[in-house]
């Protein structure tokens, strides 16, 4: 019996290594980009094969942006990282795996696609949610993940803060506003996708604060007759950045492919894939083409309002920061 099973097992194990591309890249990414990179990887592999005659296979790993950065620091052999926010790549750079000036190596803050934060509500918008102010009303239950672990959640938090700061004019009032908002949050999931599942599948909450692309995806998956997207008039410009992990790529000898991979985002084809997956493209021509897909939202950047990620992280999300203060009360 054992003698008969062993060759079968051995055969199965061997079969896994039977297909080997000329080059293999590992892209360590954040949660909501699964569908985006499934699409992008296929297109890049085809383009690369056409140009160089070499086949390339891109492996994916997805998870909360912060924990993915942590895994790369701990030795996950990522050739490239495509994370939710610059701070997480800064953390990897802080350990010497990436040079500190990484964000200047590619155009547009190394963020070839952008997104923003919108509201996903149930059919007919029963609580009449139109703007940020509606989120702090009593009886409105808001779903958003934990900003300590989730990149998307940090964008959500900063978007709300930026809105309040602009409307009420002072940091104290903004803190009050964001505190009121989090009092309406019944559960903090660890990642953006976890929150979406809580809202969509488990039917908890009246409104989900979500990446625009994540909201569109949920709507596509479950039907427009179940969920509506509400874009607030003012929100944050979320720039998810990407970088080659120099230490790993140099060791594996994959730098050239890895750089070509990231640069492909800046081509018309790359920009089109972003737009098709509901990420806002940077290329003006493609943006015009997909104009109708994205609501007109006034967008502020993290540099304008918060003075960059390092400062925002330290002030708001570090141990004992503003988020800890408001979530305790």
């Amino acid at each position, binding site marked *: 019996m054992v003698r008969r099973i062993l060759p079968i097992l051995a055969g*199965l194990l061997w079969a896994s290594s039977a297909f080997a591309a000329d080059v293999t890249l590992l892209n360590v990414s954040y949660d909501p980009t699964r569908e985006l990179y499934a699409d992008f990887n296929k297109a890049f592999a085809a383009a690369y094969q056409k140009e160089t005659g070499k086949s390339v296979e891109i492996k*994916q790993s997805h998870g909360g942006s912060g924990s993915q950065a942590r895994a790369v620091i701990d030795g996950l052999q990522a050739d490239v990282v495509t994370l939710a926010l610059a701070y997480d790549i800064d953390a990897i750079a802080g350990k010497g795996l990436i040079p500190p000036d990484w964000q200047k190596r590619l155009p547009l803050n190394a963020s070839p696609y952008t997104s923003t934060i919108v509201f996903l509500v149930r059919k007919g918008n029963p609580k009449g949610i139109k703007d940020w102010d509606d989120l702090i009303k009593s009886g409105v239950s808001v779903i958003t993940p934990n900003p300590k672990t989730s990149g998307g959640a940090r964008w959500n938090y900063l978007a709300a803060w930026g809105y309040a700061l602009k409307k009420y004019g002072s940091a104290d009032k903004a803190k009050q506003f964001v505190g009121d908002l989090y009092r309406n949050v019944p559960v903090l999931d660890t990642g953006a996708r976890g929150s979406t599942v809580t809202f969509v599948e488990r039917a908890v909450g009246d409104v989900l604060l979500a990446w625009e692309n994540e909201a569109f995806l949920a709507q596509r*998956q479950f039907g427009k007759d179940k969920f509506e997207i509400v874009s607030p008039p003012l929100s944050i410009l979320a720039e998810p950045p990407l970088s080659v992990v120099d230490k790993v790529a140099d060791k594996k000898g994959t730098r050239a492919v890895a750089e070509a991979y990231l640069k492909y985002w800046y081509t018309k084809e790359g920009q089109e894939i972003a737009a098709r997956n509901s990420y806002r493209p940077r290329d003006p021509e493609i943006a015009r083409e997909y104009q109708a897909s994205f609501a007109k939202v006034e967008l502020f950047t993290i540099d304008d309002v918060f003075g960059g990620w390092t400062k925002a992280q330290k002030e708001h999300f570090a141990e004992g920061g503003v988020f800890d203060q408001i979530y305790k009360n």
Partner: protein
Amino acid sequence: MSELQSYLSSARDDLRTEPRPVRIVIIAIAVIFLVVFVVLPLVVVFAQAFSKGIGAYLSALSDPEAWSAIRLTLLVAAISVSLNLVFGVIAAWAIAKFEFRGKTFLISLIDLPFSVSPVISGLVFVLLFGGQGYWGPWLQAHNIQVLFAVPGIALATIFVTFPFVARALIPLMQEQGTLEEEAAISLGASGLQTFFRVTLPNIKWGVLYGVLLCNARAMGEFGAVSVVSGHIRGETNTMPLLVEILYNEYQFVSSFAIASLLAMLALITLVAKTILEQHLDEGQQPRGD
């Protein structure tokens, strides 16, 4: 005389069993509990897996990513079960047949993985083998990948599952004592002969029992493996990890199809466990007094 006897026996019945309605209520509560917490979830897993027909179910299982997860799970289970088999028998032998200082301490050490949260077990290996850990830099310099690859997943699984075989054998071997071994040795058998001819036949059902539980846990482990896996698609995702990933990707049929395999493993384990327990009881009867 007979009156007294019947009085005594009925009194004994009264003492032994609760009144009928109480019995019914207690049994009903137990059954309802089982149905709600065990049977219903099992049914839901299979219902979801087959919700789009058998074709969708089969194509979900034949997906390359699913195959890779199944292969990895089998490989990791094979590695950790065989190592823990050797370790468990040796440890149980040492504890049951010999007297030495620190024995109680050794027994509590063996139980350690039962009392530690699996996430902590995973993190321990990150601290040891991670890029910033004790041995990580040396390993990286020598191009040895432990974490986020098969060795790391196997290590974490071995750690989580190592009490099972030892725990199944220790009470059994302690109860059997050392008499038969002493007889064998006094008749001139060598240590190894004694082990394979006397000790092993006595504990074989216990060994199988331990291996069975060890295997079930090895295939089902989530927490520790999740920490050391790195979640590389088609490479370092085990079946339990893939179930969660597919669920989060809104691929409910695929997710529950993999989950149904794990559920079937659980059912097979359950049946095998019952059979083994019968053998264990029988094996012990002749020795009883």
